[in-house]
């Protein structure tokens, strides 16, 4: 078959196939180049705490460049035991199981204890009060199931080029994460 492409010119099957092949090769090359360029482009990253490495040293509260640290406590409710005697909420060997200051671990009263049904209580975090001192996290991790843990909050974090908390962290628990997955929450699946 011959196809008229212009006045006085015809494209035969051989030219059509070779032209099509060249076009396909060029398209493939362009696609590969585009993909490589896309991959080579640096991904945006942000700082985050690995809760499995965190040793709850308390430096997040004092080392952040912000007046009130960008690190705050978060709570994974599906790990929580809703305990009456929450070791993240109460001082060790508490005087009474009530909300008096002498019984609470949290220095700012940021952990809120609400009765659900006997003998279960829910523990939520009053975020504006939380200073990221990790006292509750330590209590919960040492003697409970570790549902309370620290995370860098990206509505507060300045994403400094050199995070001052990361420099001070003795466990090397603060690392860069992709900005599209900026949090690293604990879950029931244990990580070794």
């Amino acid at each position, binding site marked *: 078959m011959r196809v008229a492409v212009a006045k006085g010119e015809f494209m035969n099957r051989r030219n059509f196939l070779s032209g099509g092949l060249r076009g396909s090769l060029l398209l493939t090359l362009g696609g590969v180049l585009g993909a490589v360029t896309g991959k080579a482009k640096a991904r945006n990253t942000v700082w985050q705490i690995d809760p499995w490495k965190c040793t709850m040293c308390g430096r997040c509260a004092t080392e952040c460049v912000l007046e009130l640290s960008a690190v705050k406590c978060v709570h994974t409710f599906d790990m929580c035991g809703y305990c009456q005697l929450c070791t993240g909420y109460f001082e060790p060997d508490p005087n009474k199981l009530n909300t008096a200051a002498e019984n609470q671990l949290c220095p700012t009263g940021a952990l809120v204890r609400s009765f659900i049904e006997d003998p279960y209580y829910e523990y939520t975090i009053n975020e504006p009060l939380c200073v990221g001192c990790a006292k509750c996290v330590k209590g919960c991790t040492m003697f409970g199931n570790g549902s309370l843990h620290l995370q860098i909050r990206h509505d507060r974090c300045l994403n400094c*080029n050199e995070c001052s908390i990361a420099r001070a962290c003795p466990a090397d628990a603060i690392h860069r994460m992709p900005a599209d997955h900026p949090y690293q929450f604990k879950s029931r699946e244990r990580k070794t």
Partner: protein
Amino acid sequence: MKPLIPTRWQKIPLALAIASVVFLVLMGGLLLFNQAQGKVAGLVQSTELVRLHDELRQRPQDEALKQRIRKLDLQLRQNSFTELRIAHNGTHAMIFVAGLFLASAHLARRQRRKLPNPLAWGPRQPAEERQAMLKTQYAVAALFGVAAAAAVGASLHAVRLPAPVTAALPVAVRFPTAAELQKNWPAFRGFDGSGYREVSAIPATWNVQSGHGIRWKTEVPLPGMSSPIRWTNALFLTGANASSNVVYRFDADSGTLVWAAALRRSASAGPEPKVMDDTGLAAPTPVTDGQRVYVIFANADVAALDFSGKQLWICNLGPMENIYGHSASLALYQDRLLVQLDQGEGNSKLVALNAGNGQELWRVPRPINGSWASPIVAEVAGQAQLITCGQPWVISYNPLDGTERWRVTGLDSSELAPSPICLSNTVIACNPDGNALAIRATGSGDVTTNQIIWKTDSGTPGVPSPASDGQRLYFLTVGGQLSCLNPATGQAKWTHEFEGEYYASPVIAGNRVVIVTRKGVANVVENADEFCELGKSELGEDCNATPVPAPQGLYLRGGKHLFFLSDL
């Protein structure tokens, strides 16, 4: 034309500029002072509050003390949040006032501007002025160009962050071989926890007064119930009092104290726990891999030191709530330091730390009431097992990741102190005042009903751990009944009653078995199928630590001294 002398209204910008500078200096000083106070440090690190909480635990009914805590708590919160508000509002005020200063200073400067003096310029031609202007423009353009090129160049290179400062130290790359472990005595009751050394020249008798059988005797500065461990010529011990935890290295040949390293306390260590005098603050025995020595004390400080006494890392696994005080010794498998922390129901756990840097690798809760037994690591059918005892379970774990291999119930005693031993594929666990169990260690899951080989209630130990050379199994009760059993069947070969109270475990040194009372009276008997007493000697001081047999003799820790007993 504007007047050169400013009017009263025209002095306002200057006054504003001066006032702004004063405000900026004062507010800047206040913010710097605030910063030096450490933001919320006063709130979260208040030692006074911790002290008052401790007092409250002593006097739980003291209402006045509760009021003091509440008052101090409120005061600390108010102070900290006021400081934060000052910092926040002060920063904004400084930005505003800095703008005000720039504007008012600019106005003030304009009003105080002097009239130009054309004579100061000198004679200049218009063409020369144009040329100077052009040069200035080129210079500015070139400067911008260089800056732009530098910015583009910098943006093409990735910024490399400096390595963060961490406490991590090089991880051990070489693990000791089985031959090295057998040659030395790296842990409580030896490398496998059996309390057996094949060849040892220990004396049958000795005399502290005359020096017969005593190669050397060295004073140990601080008390402790922990036993010595030995690696080539290094002998390690721990001791503690209320103010310090100390690790000692002695020369195994001469008894010289090579170094004493007082641990720098872990930052997260809590107050010193209350312990019984019978346990003390340094009951757990250290463990070594030939490169470092690892220790744990009653306050849950776990640390690693190198052989020169340098503290490599320390961490705290407390608070400890064990009613008698912590006594379980450490175990080591490859690069995992294994810590058994049975502190009471709901508070018992097993923790594995990276031996290189002290970071936690895994932690598993244990369904155990408090126990005082030490864990052992044994190789069973090619698999490493971490075997633990605590009321009511004997549980075997995989030391690499903490997963459970098997468990057996039957340890009913609430005061479980004897550690298990493993002979080939059989684990022997003792239930004080009850049965001793021999368990086939090859099952999985709960094997209570199908892997018990034998049980016996004959002379089951209460505090001392059993010892075995594989041919004979020795039980020693606190009251002094020494039993020799067939480890395959649990049948007693012989039994003998000694006088005295025994906490130290028996050890087998070649063809001799050594037992020592709490008052330091030692009996040496023959390791044989018939009872034969070889000698009886007195140490002259208390003894609660398990002896350590060595090729040349026997190391023994008394209440005040470390002894090396040898006939050679």
